[in-house]
Every structure is written in C-alpha cells, then in structure tokens.
C-alpha cells in the first residue's frame, strides 16, 4: 500500500541523513548522532525560508471516514486549542474541523477535514491592514501575533471559515504555538514541526490511528511522494473557482 507521508526511506531523506551522518561522523565522536532526521525539503534552522519549497497537503476523501476526528484531536493536543471555559461553542477556536458533504441529487456523500487551505493568493493576507496575516515563502500562511490588532477582516475574507478569534484569556499555551485574547489564529500547518523536519500533527495522527488519508510534502519537488501522487490521480481544490491556488488539495470528489 502506498504510504501517504514522506517516509524515512525517501531518497531525499536518505541523502540528507547520509550527509548529516557524514558530518557528524567526522566532526563528533563516533557513535553520537547530533543531527535530527529531517523531512525531504526541510531546511536547516539557519537557512532562510525560500520559495524553492511549496508545502502542501493531499487529502484522500475516499479514506476519510465520517465521524472520524483524529486529525482534529491531534491538532487540539498539539496546539492547545480546545473548548475554552467561558466561550460559547460558536466562539470556540476551530483550527480544523470535519465537514460532511452530500450530493442531494445522487446521495453520494463524503467527509473531509477543513482547515486553512494555505492559499498561494491568500485573501486573509490581502485584506490584513497591518500585514499580520502573511504567507511564508514556502507557502505556509500564518498570523504574526505581535502585530495582529484583532480587526477580524481576515476572518470575513476567508472563504473557508478557517480562522478563529480568541474571545477570552488563554492559559497554558504551548511555547511553539502562542495564542492570545483578541487576536486571530488558524492552522499553521504545524510550522514548528515542518521546520524541524517533521510532518503536521494531523497527518501523523491520520496515518497512525485513522485511514492514512493525508499526505504532506513539497509540491515543488517532483520526486516527493505528494508530487508523484497528484500527478497520478485527479485532485481538486475547494472553491477552485476563486483562483486562490491553495496548498491543500483533495481527491475523491
């Protein structure tokens, strides 16, 4: 069965690991590994983010079961968003949610996770007055919490309802995923993991505990598993008519 994640047996990973091991072997005492394994296309911490990489997700809805929300739970655990104590359900954060879709004419139904679609032309970043909403060179759309003024125009502009406003004081935040009352937040594509060479938490959870319906990788690298896969199957983007060229692609509908 084709595994949908970039695996340690990828050629790129082997090359990188090999190089890292060679450096470690010559500079450090033999037997001690100081360089963490990195995903194909992942940059070194000292390297700038470039557009040579375009991170993306492929979601196979034929493997995504209705009612399964392991991806949502993994995201909550990873980033610490949950049902806030004072907020009403419609005020709670929702970085990723499961959406059930049904064709009323045929009855065909499918389920999929919906999160920030990491658009190439993100409307949220276009409308943000301060530039707090921005797209990294590698395609990850983020919010700079230091300059978000909480105007929520990005939420009005997002076609996917992928952004949340924090309605109350937050405690127990994760150091790598800061949150704050009065600012907007959304899926970061687990940028802290990606920069460390790992895959997003939702992808990891889906592979480990669900139908392995999510494939993460570099869309720019023709040798990556995701690039190979999307060259073989029909994929679509949600509201492709808007021309936003999202980094999240779907298969199965």
């Amino acid at each position, binding site marked *: 069965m084709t595994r949908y994640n970039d695996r340690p047996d990828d050629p790129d990973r082997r090359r990188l690991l090999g190089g890292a091991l060679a450096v470690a072997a010559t500079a450090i005492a033999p037997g001690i590994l100081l360089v963490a394994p990195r995903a194909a296309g992942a940059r070194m911490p000292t390297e700038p983010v470039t557009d040579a990489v375009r991170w993306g997700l492929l979601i196979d809805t034929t493997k995504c079961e209705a009612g399964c929300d392991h991806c949502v739970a993994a995201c909550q655990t990873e980033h610490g968003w949950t049902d806030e104590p004072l907020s009403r359900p419609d005020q*709670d954060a929702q970085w990723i949610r499961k959406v059930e879709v049904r064709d009323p004419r045929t009855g065909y139904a499918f389920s999929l996770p919906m999160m920030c679609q990491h658009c190439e032309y993100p409307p949220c970043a276009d409308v943000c007055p301060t530039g707090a909403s921005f797209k990294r060179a590698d395609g990850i759309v983020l919010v700079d919490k230091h300059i978000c003024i909480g105007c929520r125009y990005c939420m009005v502009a997002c076609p996917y309802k992928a952004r949340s406003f924090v309605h109350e004081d937050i405690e127990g935040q994760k150091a790598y995923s800061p949150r704050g009352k009065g600012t*907007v937040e959304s899926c970061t594509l687990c940028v802290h993991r990606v920069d460390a060479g790992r895959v997003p938490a939702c992808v990891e959870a889906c592979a480990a505990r669900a139908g392995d319906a999510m494939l993460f990788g570099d869309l720019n690298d023709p040798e990556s598993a995701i690039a190979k896969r999307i060259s073989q199957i029909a994929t679509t983007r949600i509201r492709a008519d808007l021309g936003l060229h999202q980094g999240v692609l779907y298969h199965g509908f």
Partner: protein
Amino acid sequence: MSKRINLDHLGLQGISFYGPLAWIGLLILVGLGCAYTMEHSGHVITGMNNQVMWGTPHVFAVFLIVAASGALNVASISSVFGKQMYKPLAPLSTVVSAALLVGGLAVLVLDLGRPDRLTVAMTHYNFKSIFAWNIYLYIGFLLIILTYLWMMMERRMQPHAHGAGIVAFLWRLALTTGTGSIFGFVIARQAYDAAIMAPMFIVFSFAYGLAAFNLVIMGLYNWTGRELGSFVTYRFRSMLRLFVGGSAYFTVIYHLTNLYAPEHAAWERFILLDGGIYTALFWLGQVGIGYVAPLLLLFHPGTRDSFSVIAGASVLILLGGMAQMYVTIIGGQAFPLLLFPGMEVSSGFADGVVASYVPSMWEVGLGLLGFAIALLIIVLSAKTLRVVPDNLSNRFLDPDHDKTQAELAEERALAQSA
C-alpha cells in the same frame, strides 16, 4: 443677501446648555464602560462569534463613517457647485462631518481585539489591504476638512476655501468608495463581492449624511430658538427625495443583478424571503422605514410641507440606514459560506446553516458611544466656534423673497378689492 447672516456660536448658558451636555456625557461614560468591559473580559461577553465576527459595533461604526462623508454634502454644494445660499451652512456641515467620522472611528477602534495596538495599525501597513487604505482615507479626510474649515473661517484664507472644498469633495468620494469596498472586495461571501457596493455606499452616504445634518440643524435651531426658514428646509427635502430614491434604485439593481446569477440565488432567497430577522429588517427596516415611508412623507401634498414631517422623515432615513447596515454587515456574515456549490454540507461548526447572532448590551453601549461622541463634538464646536448661522430666515436666503412677498401682497389686495 447672505451678508445679513452672521456666523455665531451657541449663546446658551446654564442648565439649558449643560443639561443636555450632561446627558451626552452620561451616554459617553456608559459607552466607555462597555468598551472597557469588552476589552477586559474579551469578546466572549458579546454576541459576536467565529461565524459573525463583525457585530453591532460595526453596524454603528460603518453607519457613522458613511454618514460622515454625506454630511459634507452641504459644504460641497456651496464650495464645489457654487450655490451661495448654502455658504452659511458650510462650516457647520464640515463640523458635523468630522464629528460623525470621529464617533464612528472611536467605535471601530474600541471594538478591536487589541485596541492597545492602535499604534501598530499606524506603523505597519499592508498596502494591498483596503483597510490600510481606509486608515489613510479617514485620517486624510479629517485633516482635509479641518483645513477646509479653517480656510472658511479665517478671512485671509477664504480665497483658498473653494480649492479646499474641491479636494474635500473628491476625498469624501474616495473615502466612501473605500468603505463600500471593504465589502465589495470580499470574494468569499455571497452578499459582498460586488463592485456596486462602492457607488451604492456613496449614494447611501448622501442620504444618511444629509438626514443627519438636517436633524442637527433643526435640533440646534429649535434648541436656541433661532429662525429656520422653509427655503433651507425645503431644499433639504428635495435633496433627501433624490438621495433616498437613489439609494432605493441602487438596492434594486444590487438585488436584480444577484437574482440574475444562479450562484447568488440562495443569498437572495435568504434576504428577500426566508432569512428571518434579516428578511424582516430588509423589508420593514431598510425598504419600509428607510425608503418607502420617507418618500411618501416627503412627496405627499398633505405632509411634505411640515417641518416636523421632514424631521421625522430624516429620523426614518437614519433608522432605515441602521437596518441596512445590519442586513449588509450581519446578514452577510450569517449566511453560510458556499464551500461546495450544489451540495449539502454539515459540521459541528455551523457549516451549511445560518449562523446565530444576538447583540449584547455591551455592543449596543459601545455603538451608542459613537453617536454620543459625535453629538459632543457637534455641541462643543457649536458652542466654541462661530459655525452656526444666527438665522436661516427666508428673507435673507431667498433672492426672490421680496419679489414673492410683493406679489403675495398684490394678490391679497386684489382679492380684497374683488
């Protein structure tokens, strides 16, 4: 003729001045209390949520900002189109415009999730954002109209007032274009994403701003016992007919265009037929109270000549305008996003269903703060600056007044002799 009208400040003293001022002050204190509570507790205490992100404060704020640009109409007609009879009213028109804008901006800023970061909004600009443009448009508008006011009031600068008036007029068109485009540029929502939003907001601003200015004039003259002639009021009535009719026209075109496009059919069905409170507010509020009732009152021979009716029609136009903003801003967000055209969608996050929104008292208090700030600025400006004509009597404003009076006297004499 206009030489006999002097610009003056309000001569009110004692309780007759400080009484109403105290009420405005109380409203401001209540509004600031609401803003502080919202800032302290977070938006969790409001009706706003992650489906309806912009709530009642935005209805008030956008309404005030739109009305602000329209309140400059009278000054523009005087300076840009050279209608001398409006010249005595131009400074007050400028003051009302600035006051409404400051009131609206105060609400907008105090509703921010992080109002303490206002300096960030002043120092970090994303020039692709219509919001960032609007920050320039709003601040620029204030600077321009205050300069314009100074040029009108400072005798040495009066030759330049015409030029400043033209700049202010062009800038106010740009400003309302920017405000309308906040919605027009949003591609994601069925209610917005339309180029007509910008010109439609300009026409709305003409109506809301003139109605507000008319009420300020009537209120100030009633308060101070000054003479307000029909010459001014009837001209305002004529302009209100035109602007309300224009607003109705743009509304019809907006909905007709949407009805023609199948992709917008669901939104139109929602707002015109089965959208609950939003449908009711559209038909009863925006159309009934905002367009039909004022037009009937302003055109009907039995009511159109009454000052009270013209004032009442102005109030209706403002109420209809608030309903329009509620329908546009909150209705536009409550209607579900179209994720999969032609498909049924559901989720635990209100996909495929109309989002709920119930305004909280904190939001209403913050919104009223905007009106209170605008009133305070108007009253204090009228008290301290010579911006209020000492009278607006027909005999000073109407160039044909003497001739008309002579003709009337002649007719009376003829009637008596007959």
